[in-house]
């Protein structure tokens, strides 16, 4: 360490370690969800996800019954606990009462309450000897055995192949794409005007837009829906596009305006001197240079509309043909009282697949847009 001169390398390492720790911290819940999405509901409540890859010792119950053989006036019943049961490893202990299900080490003999003896071996084979004929119901026996880890794709099958999932997926796209494009179109024009055109009241207008950022959209749900009903849009896809546009505009305008204001003044003034109209400046110069800001807002808006449940419930018709994916998951797959963690985790992964893909695609454009800005 001493031969590295200066503080910088050490600082770099500290930064790197910090970043690494943060990344791990952020990833832990996602990994947990991912592992849980491959597990059965009962497994999820039985053991935590970080123990999922390892075999666990589980206590199970079985019944010993069958046709006993009579040997020297004693009824002898033999068999194997593993018969008909899959995925049971070595048996370590057994018992004959619920309150003490693993009190006897495998291979040792125990007395039964009704008289007689029972022995269960590590390989699952057992021998029960009773002086009287055992009842048809059979003898309860409890045993602890190693159970190999079990993963299943059932959750994914249930989520992906449930009725109407494809329709919900298409509906989500039908909502999301226009709800991302429309506000960007409007906001780009507005942002240019607010950044580079001189007109009275501009400052107030900007302040107004910033002020709208703090208005919670929940406040607008009822009046907006009433308005839609009055003007005949009602609950429809057009209605939700307008709603998302309205809710997204303040942030879009604010973000784009701040970015556009920061563009080099010389270029725009130069263009004006050369006789370019505002529209030409906007389309030829400002818009291409603002690409990174447009892309980053598009990501924001896309993610928010993709994940939205509330606005979709209010502004879309409630029949299952116009459900978006979030509604399909919350109202149909999870059932009336929730608690199905496997489905929840799986649904989360299915629904983030598209946003992740979009993010990685847009990230490429983000970098390209930045480069274009610097090279001019």
């Amino acid at each position, binding site marked *: 360490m001493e031969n590295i001169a200066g503080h910088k390398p050490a600082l770099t390492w500290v930064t790197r370690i910090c970043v690494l720790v943060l990344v791990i911290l952020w990833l832990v819940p996602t990994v947990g969800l991912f592992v849980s999405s491959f597990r*059965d*509901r*009962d497994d999820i*409540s039985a053991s935590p996800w970080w123990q999922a890859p390892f075999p666990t010792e589980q*206590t*199970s*119950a079985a019944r010993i019954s069958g046709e006993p053989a009579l040997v020297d006036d004693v009824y002898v019943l033999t068999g194997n606990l593993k018969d008909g049961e899959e995925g049971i490893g070595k048996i370590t202990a057994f018992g004959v*009462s*619920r*309150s*003490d*299900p*693993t009190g006897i080490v495998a291979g040792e003999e125990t007395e039964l309450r009704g008289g007689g003896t029972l022995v269960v071996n590590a390989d699952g084979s057992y021998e029960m000897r009773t002086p009287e004929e055992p009842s048809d119901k059979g003898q*309860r026996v*409890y045993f602890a055995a190693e159970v190999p880890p079990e993963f299943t794709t059932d959750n994914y099958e249930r989520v992906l192949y449930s009725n109407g999932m494809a329709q919900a997926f298409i509906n989500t796209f039908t909502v999301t794409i226009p709800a991302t494009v429309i506000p960007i179109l409007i906001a780009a024009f507005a942002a240019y005007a607010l950044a580079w055109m001189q007109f009275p009241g501009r400052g107030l207008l900007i302040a107004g837009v910033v002020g709208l950022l703090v208005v919670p959209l929940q406040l607008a*749900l*009822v*009046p907006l*829906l*009433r308005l839609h*009903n009055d003007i005949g849009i*009602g*609950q429809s896809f057009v209605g939700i596009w307008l709603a998302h546009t309205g809710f997204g505009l303040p942030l879009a305008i604010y973000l784009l305006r701040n970015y556009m204001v920061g563009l080099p003044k010389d270029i725009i003034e130069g263009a004006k001197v050369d006789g370019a109209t505002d529209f030409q400046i906007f389309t030829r110069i400002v818009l291409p240079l603002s690409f990174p800001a447009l892309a980053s807002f598009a990501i924001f808006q896309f993610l928010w509309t993709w994940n939205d449940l509330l606005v979709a*419930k*209010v502004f879309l018709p*409630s*029949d*299952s043909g116009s459900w978006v994916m979030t509604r399909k998951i*919350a*109202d*149909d*797959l*999870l*059932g*009336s*009282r*929730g*608690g199905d963690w496997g489905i929840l985790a799986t649904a989360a992964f299915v629904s983030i697949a598209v946003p992740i893909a979009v993010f990685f695609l847009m990230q490429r454009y983000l970098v390209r847009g930045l480069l274009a800005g610097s090279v001019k």
Partner: protein
Amino acid sequence: MKKVLFAGVAASAMIAGNAHAQDLMFAPGDGDFHWDSYQAFADANDLAGQTVTITGPWTGNEKERVEKVFDYFEAATGATVEYSGSDSFEQDIVISAEAGSAPNLAVFPQPGLAADMAKRGLLTPLPEGTAEWVAENFAAGQSWVDLGTYADQDGNDQLYGLFYRADLKSLVWYVPEAFEEMGYEIPESMEDLKALTQQIVDDGGTPWCIGLGSGAATGWPATDWVEDLMLRTQPASVYDQWVTNELPFNDPAVIGAINEFGWFARTDGYADGGAEAVASTDFRDSPTGLFELPPKCYMHRQASFIPAFFPEDVEVGTDADFFYFPSYAEKDLGNPVLGAGTLFGITSPSDATNTFLEFMKLPIAHEAWMAQGGFLTAHAGVNTGLYNTDSERAMGEILQGATTFRFDGSDLMPGEIGAGAFWTGMVDYTTGASAEDVTAAIQSRWNEIK
């Protein structure tokens, strides 16, 4: 086989506008359903081309089941029923009613919200004569009428809610095999139940699994406990006064009931994990303790819906069973039953809607869901033989044989109390606050909103 098929076809052909008849679960004429009244209803009504829209809290497989019931209405009248379930029904219905795009009917999971909407003029009273019909045809009919009657905008009481589907809350779930192995008997009285609780502790076990966790609604399972114990320590009239706050929340009667709950939940060793765990365990995870080996607990007091959260391989009736949460032998208060239920209310009136409500009065509307399971009804005219399982039949009989039926009190109190202060107060109590402090705090909240 062929004969049955023909009979089914013949019967369904008799029904007017039988566009959907072939999709019906049970062909009209088959089984011990009340087909006669259905047939008469079908003959009397023709709503071809009309639509009834309904929204409610039933989603997932409950939605599938109720839609199969609605199929019978569609087959009988030719109308279309559009049902949509929502996980956040309580918010959605208020928004759509306020905005003027409400469906014809809403299914309310508790009367509090319906009463609130009636007061704001968002509900339409049920057709005349419904009150008399409910009083006559439901077990403990008048109490169901009272539960569906709310003040309108001008303060006049009108019937707004028709109850359909009930939940039974006074149940204790247990594993018969565990009881058998330990030689425990089903307690017949509260005294026996308390003695059994102590005996299980003496035998080295833990008697109770109690979980109050439920996300934003954490605490509600404890309010059910207190309500049940209130009914077992006080006459029903005192319970009614408590719900309307004629009896202050910090009255010794209420404090007594809360301390009774504390006896179960706060006594060391009585509840799995101790009082701290009671407050933090999710109510959905809580019953799994019954089925663990060795058992984490032997008894779990919860409503009739809880088997939905039992592990998948548990079969109700053999692996798990229930008994009535008993009343005190020494107090002569009868066998009170605590329950809850969902009710239909009219959010946007139409003729087809009224006809639909007529259909909901028919035994078949109840029987068609009974036969699918997960449904209890207070309708006295149904064939209880049609219940899907023996345990549901037993629950249905508890419901119909109740000497006193009382609705979940926290659902009747104002939302701020019944879905707020009471819940959080019970969490505070479970984690160590005294019943006096907790009830005084709830009462002062109630005074504020009066």
